[in-house]
């Protein structure tokens, strides 16, 4: 029964990853891409926590078993290392999302749209046919 529930949990997380990658790839709106990126990172964090849970492989905490209390603690503890990694990953993901939000705002102010099709149309329309990156030296 527990294995059935954990299988449902893992399959649901896989479906979540699939839906969010579909959203990142196929939706042209950048705000929708941002929502899909947040869902993707959160789902990967949940998968890391599920791997660290004691259902699949019981963890070995960095504690010496001195007496019976510690032994009881070791039989019930979960792995702390994925939790520390996920705690760091959540904060780094927050910084990444803030950077992407202000990048999107900058794109909206330059091109007047957050739809990537319209942004590309505006770019191709306003670019000249020949792009000179540097001023040519006057030949004498």
């Amino acid at each position, binding site marked *: 029964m527990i294995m059935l*529930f954990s299988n449902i949990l893992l399959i*649901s997380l896989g479906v979540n990853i699939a839906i969010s990658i579909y959203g990142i790839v196929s939706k042209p709106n950048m705000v929708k891409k941002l929502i899909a990126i947040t869902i993707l990172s959160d789902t990967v964090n949940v998968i890391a926590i599920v791997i660290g849970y004691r259902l699949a492989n019981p963890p070995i905490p960095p504690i010496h078993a001195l007496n019976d209390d510690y032994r009881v603690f070791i039989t019930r503890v979960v792995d702390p290392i994925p939790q520390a990694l996920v705690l760091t990953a959540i904060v780094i993901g927050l910084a990444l999302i803030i950077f992407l939000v202000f990048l999107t705002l900058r794109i909206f102010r330059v091109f007047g749209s957050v739809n990537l099709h319209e942004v590309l149309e505006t770019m191709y329309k306003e670019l000249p046919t020949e792009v000179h990156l540097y001023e040519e030296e006057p030949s004498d």
Partner: protein
Amino acid sequence: MSLLALLSVIATYLAITERDLLKAVIFSALQSISYVFIFYLLMAPDIVLVYIPIALGIYPALLLFLIKKTGRYERK
């Protein structure tokens, strides 16, 4: 826990396919609520304490700020 995972699948699908971006942000917050309970049931209360203000407070606030600046409805 499996029911919460199924709820998160439904909320993710609605958040991706919704054309009104405000409703999409609300559905992604619903998905974050189900992840909060999954974290709590997997014995990670410290991650719950960090995840609640970030995923339910700062992410929707940032996305609502962006939607207010850029426009509410997603064009096809």
